[in-house]
């Protein structure tokens, strides 16, 4: 739960000088590295101590993209299930999701489908998703190959990155890509050729799985 009194975020948070505001959410099992990933991006810091996130947290960062200033409010969610009711409440406001697993943890990879179901259940319809396999620096302990990750992403119809919060691999790239995808969606929705909207698009929307699991797990 860092970041509270940190003057840096306050500066960023209060900054009203921007064109667009995107809300992003990082989700995935506990300990896959969501918080580390966000800290790396926002503060360029990393610690190997594990402090599991309590409920939710967020950081704010303003970036330039195609001569526009985009203010990102990036929500870090707790992976632990006991916070699920709180975290899912934030899905509704998110334009983009970073769905993370840990390449050294099979279980976290197997849970991806469940997270997808959560997104489908709680998020706004056209939210964009990127799948991220984190901790790619730990080659010796890797259990999920790059190929498996990529295949799953293909199946889900989303883009895929392997990253390391520790070694700062692809962290920035993931955020930039997500921002780009959202920007594309935005201009598609407003400045695109009308006759083609709705035709096959390479959007990052989750495609429906044929074996579509019924989402009876709404626990409200």
């Amino acid at each position, binding site marked *: 739960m860092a970041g509270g009194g940190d003057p840096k975020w306050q500066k960023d948070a209060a900054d009203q000088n921007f064109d667009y505001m995107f809300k992003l959410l990082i989700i995935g099992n506990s300990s896959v590295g969501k918080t580390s990933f966000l800290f790396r991006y926002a503060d360029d810091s990393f610690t190997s101590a594990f402090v599991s996130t309590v409920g939710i947290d967020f950081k704010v960062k303003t970036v330039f993209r195609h001569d526009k200033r985009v203010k990102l409010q990036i929500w870090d969610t707790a992976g632990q299930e006991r916070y699920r009711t709180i975290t899912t409440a934030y899905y509704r406001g998110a334009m983009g999701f970073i769905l993370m697993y840990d390449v050294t943890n099979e*279980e976290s990879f197997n849970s991806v489908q469940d997270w997808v179901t959560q997104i*489908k259940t709680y998020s706004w*319809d056209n939210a964009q998703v990127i799948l991220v396999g984190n901790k790619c620096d730990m080659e010796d302990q890797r259990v999920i190959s790059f190929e498996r990750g990529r295949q799953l992403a293909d199946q889900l119809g989303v883009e895929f990155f392997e990253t390391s919060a520790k070694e700062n691999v692809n962290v920035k790239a993931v955020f930039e890509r997500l921002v780009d995808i959202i920007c594309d969606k935005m201009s598609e929705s407003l400045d695109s050729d009308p006759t083609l909207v709705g035709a096959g698009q390479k959007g990052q929307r989750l495609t429906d799985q044929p074996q579509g699991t019924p989402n009876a797990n709404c626990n409200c």
Partner: protein
Amino acid sequence: MDFQSHNNTSGNKFVCPSDRQLALRAKLRAGWSSSKTNEPLRPDEQAAIISVIRRNEEIETAERQRVGRLVERVEKIKQRAVEGGPNCCRLCGDTFGLLRSTRIICEDCKKSVCAKCSVDINIRYHTSDRTREIWLCRICSETREMWKKSGAWFFKGLPNYDAPSSTNSTPTHQSASGGAMSDVLLPPRGAQSCNNTPTRNVRVKKLTIHVDDSSSSEEDTNGGGGGGGDVVDGAISAVCAVAPLTTARTPNRNSFNADVSPPAATRMQREDSFRLRTFGSIRSFIDSGERKLSNSFFANRQSSRTESNQQDYDTISTASTVTSVNNRRESNCNYTRRSSVSSSWSISGESSSGNSANTSNHVPNHNQVNLHCRELLGWLEVAVSYRESVHSLDCVMVRARDLPAMDAAGLTDPYCKVNIVTPDGMTKYSRWLRTKTVHKTRNPEFNETLQFVGVEPEELGGSSLYVAIFDDDKYGHDYLGGAKISLSPVHNTNQYRISVPLGGEDRFSNEAEMSQEWPHGKILISLCYNTKRRALVVNVKQCINLIPMDNNGSSDPFVKLQLKPDSHKNKKYKTGVKWRTLNPIYREEFYFESSPHDLNKQTLYITVWDKDIGKSNDFLGSLVIGYNSKGERLQQWLDCIKLPDHFHEKWHCLSGEHPTH
């Protein structure tokens, strides 16, 4: 609040495991469904979460103000527009002609503009790298910008915003002015996406927001909405649901907000914007023209069973038919032009006419209507217990909180309809159980036990309890909110008590709604305030399922209408008689002279009669619609005043009571 009871006894305190333990656990079984943990949040955890929520509050407040400024910017341009008709530039008023400015037709609003007042933009083709040039008038290009910058493009409607303070001297609830404007003047989202959802998804040119329909598995989402403050709301709800607060207060937003920084006035206003999530579509910015609501009540109902949540999106489309609107400047009645987004008119809220002291109550409080289809519709507390010996599930509807207001005084007459949803997603009982109505409150204490018999113990696991709350009214029961509560935590012995946030419509709530019986049939009425003729136009379209009164199993229905009080002439009208039918179609129009101001105090009495030759006519049913109506009726009435020169059409239920007046 006393819903602590559902949780553990003292021994079961959650102990924070060491980091290492957590890491291990994550390795082994990971976070997914390792445990059915429902440990309440510890005070320090709650504090942590609340502090995040507060930090977010600041951002949300700034966001609402920013969006308010964006909206105002477009409004200012709109206000300056001349709108002189098709032969001169919409913005500067220059006339077109051979030697004069060339006429450019704006892609979005299809109005004529001159070259000075328009911009050309390039739009991309998706399939190729080609682009196409289109022209937009300055209003529409600014609107597109605003749509992007506010996030409305994503949420398919403007998020809540606070009008800039300059125009906002009195942010009170009482009048439709100031900060509440945004909510008031945008086309109510309810009107677009609830019952009146046009059945054919009017997918339109240009700004159509593309909907991918991979939503087959989303049957029970909790209504639409998004962005902005609701997240906070939702989260707080969630915190409350998980953690019985130490403050021991009702689980509403206030328990958190009470001491958050902004001054009282803003808080009140913010409260509004939380409560009243109404959405405008970009359409309302571009096209202040036709907003005819579709009338196909039944088709709509059917489709809403299958695609209830998708409709939310589909209907928020953009300008379809762009009919040029009468030049509103010519009308000079009690309207003031507000910096309203929908460029519609708002009624000057003053009611100086010497009425009784409580006039203010009678001025329809726009803020408090239009409440359907927001995402947070209040709270419901239930207590469920199972008696295995008799296979009976006893469900106590304890209370509800913060239900949407349904009448101008901000009150509601709620009752619950309850059923069990089986694991295969069907309702178990064909008959829904219902509680009594608790009158005139948004915080009803039901305290009523509804008993379901024949519930096998093994059924509990996968089933849920479905509760839909409706507003009880003679002329139709409006949906207030619903919740699906999993029955798996219910065990034989103790009572399971839970407080849940209420969500929007879904197929179960529709089913509950359809299970209502309307023995007197329904009537389709279309209303329009015609500013040229200064009259309320009532189009009696049709009735269905009227009661048979004659020996032949049919009736000979006609409709009588009267607007009261009618200072002008006390006019009464009736339609022609349709012989031998229970489903007459009239499509007859009647004009009642009135001013929008007077309409705020008037009521339309509609009665349906069976024509009997030689003896007195039989009464078939009635509908009363006006300033003191509730729910959908009030909505239609206000829509008609707010957006004149447009027909507002709705189905209503007929009551068997003769209106006494």
